[in-house]
């Protein structure tokens, strides 16, 4: 009798564990699941296509400049004869790679500063929040442009600039969460037990903040893709010949290409649009799944 009851409790806690619940609610959200599948497909094809393609990313095919889409070159070739199909997916690697790197870096900076500000409060909090205000009021695109001009257009600088300019968003969310969490009884117990500050932050506070960080990171992927492609479109992001989705669509600033050669700009535009759309929907879905109270 006792055993069965224990078993029932064990079973139900296992089934109702927090992340299991999140996954169950997310799976019920059809739009979010479709987005997730599309995103996985995009990522996989960006990894696989350049490996399997018979053309290299930078390879100039002799005598095949300005070709229309054909059986050999599925999306045609550009003005010097590079295969646009393989460049589209290789560009995806760079664009998505930049987005992942920026999001990761921004979350690390933001979570650390946000937790420190929220946990210690007082003067530390004031300083961190003032700095974050300064960063939030930067005319974002302008600063990117300025810094890119000055530090040169490498992928590494681009990642650093974007991450350094975007951390306040997540820092403020984390700080707010921690401010409310630290007033809770279990944190009181931690302090009473004399657990070290670092352990309190990373073992007891951070797991409770993680859900919000994941939602934020998903949304951030969308906005970083948008920023990177916008900068590349202006010719101020990653410099050619490295393809990114923004660099590829940038060709359409040329009127003849816009007029007659859809295969230059429609495919990268669609990829940018699709991935931003899917990250947004997935982020919404995750938020609803993580916080059922917020559900529409």
């Amino acid at each position, binding site marked *: 009798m006792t055993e069965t009851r224990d078993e029932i409790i064990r079973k139900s806690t296992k089934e109702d564990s927090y992340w299991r619940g999140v996954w169950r609610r997310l799976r019920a959200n059809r739009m979010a699941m479709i987005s997730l599948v599309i995103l996985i497909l995009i990522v996989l094809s960006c990894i696989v296509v350049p490996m399997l393609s018979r053309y290299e990313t930078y390879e100039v095919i002799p005598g095949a400049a300005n070709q229309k889409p054909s059986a050999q070159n599925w999306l045609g070739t550009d003005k010097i004869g590079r295969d646009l199909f393989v460049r589209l997916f290789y560009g995806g690697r760079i664009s998505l790679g930049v987005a992942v790197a920026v999001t990761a870096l921004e979350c690390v900076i933001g979570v650390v500063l946000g937790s420190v500000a929220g946990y210690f409060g007082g003067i530390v909090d004031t300083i961190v929040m003032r700095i974050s205000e300064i960063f939030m009021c930067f005319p974002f695109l302008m600063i990117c*442009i300025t*810094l890119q001009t*000055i530090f040169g257009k490498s992928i590494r600088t681009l990642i650093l600039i974007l991450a350094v300019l975007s951390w306040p968003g997540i820092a403020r969310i984390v700080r707010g969460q921690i401010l409310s969490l630290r007033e809770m009884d279990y944190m009181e117990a931690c302090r009473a037990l004399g657990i070290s500050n670092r352990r309190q932050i990373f073992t007891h506070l951070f797991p409770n903040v993680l859900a919000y960080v994941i939602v934020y990171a998903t949304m951030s992927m969308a906005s970083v893709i948008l920023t990177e492609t916008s900068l590349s479109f202006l010719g101020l992001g990653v410099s050619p010949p490295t393809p990114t989705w923004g660099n590829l*669509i940038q060709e359409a600033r040329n009127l003849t290409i816009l007029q007659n050669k859809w295969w230059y700009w429609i495919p990268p535009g669609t990829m940018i649009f699709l991935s931003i*759309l899917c990250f947004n929907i997935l982020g919404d879905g995750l938020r609803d799944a993580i916080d059922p109270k917020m559900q529409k």
Partner: protein
Amino acid sequence: MKNYTIRRLLQIIPVFLGILFILFFIIDKAPGSITSNIMDPNMTPELKAALQEKMDPNLPFYTKFINWVIEAAHGNFGYSYKHYRPVIEVIGMNIGCTFALALAALVIAMLVGIPAGIISATKQYSLIDNVLTVFSLLGLALPTFFAGLLLLKVFGIELQWVPIFGLSDPSKANADFLTRLGDHAYHLILPAIVLGLAETASFMRYTRSSMLEVIRSDYIRTARAKGLSEKVIIYKHAFRNAMIPIITLLGFRIPGLISGAVMTETIFSLPGVGKLSVDATTTRNYPLLLGINAMLTMATLLGTLVADLLYAAADPRIKYD
């Protein structure tokens, strides 16, 4: 309220100076001195030194910064050597276009986005709500440059309904004021729609969620119980309270509008501040870049301030002391 206004105004000053300091520091460390762009290789070394002394004297960084701030406070942002004019004049010549573009986009966004959000909220989960929600999702995900290219292709190149670049038709340069104004408006239609697209989507989203929240509140139930008509309930009772968060949205949209304007002006070759700044980076015109950034930062800060103050003024429940 008065104290709050004053305190918020005072808070802006350190933030603004902080941003200016970082900007100035970055630009000071930038490769290529201000003078290297205007120096002729045939100049004598004495002339070069004199010019260097005049344009970019060898002073410590903080002295230069303080001098710049004092000069800027008097309206002197330096000299744009590409245009042979003071920075402030160059910005002044270009800001009208950007302002008109941003304003038109904002008006479109409010005229379309807010009613759509209200309809969507009052008919939650209906077919029209779903359609509008899908549209707002698509609108938010469509990057400005892709939307611009697509509309340019369809309405400018294929259908030829609107001009594809510039702000005015050269043949109408000597026409009377009204004709020129109409010409500008004609050139700005498509750019304003492009810039307004994302704004419309976000206005719709915010209006919808704000309306939904208000509709569920007790006083709306009371209004229904009194037997008021649905129209009066929605547009008189609910709308007023639902608008409060939307007012703040107006102030916070300024940075988004600015970066959107940069893209739109580049695509449609409009002579605005956005295009000016892109050109300034490619020509390394640092005084101009600094001036534009200072101005846009101020606009962003004031936008946030105005949003906060409007919020406090519109909602008497919020007390600031």
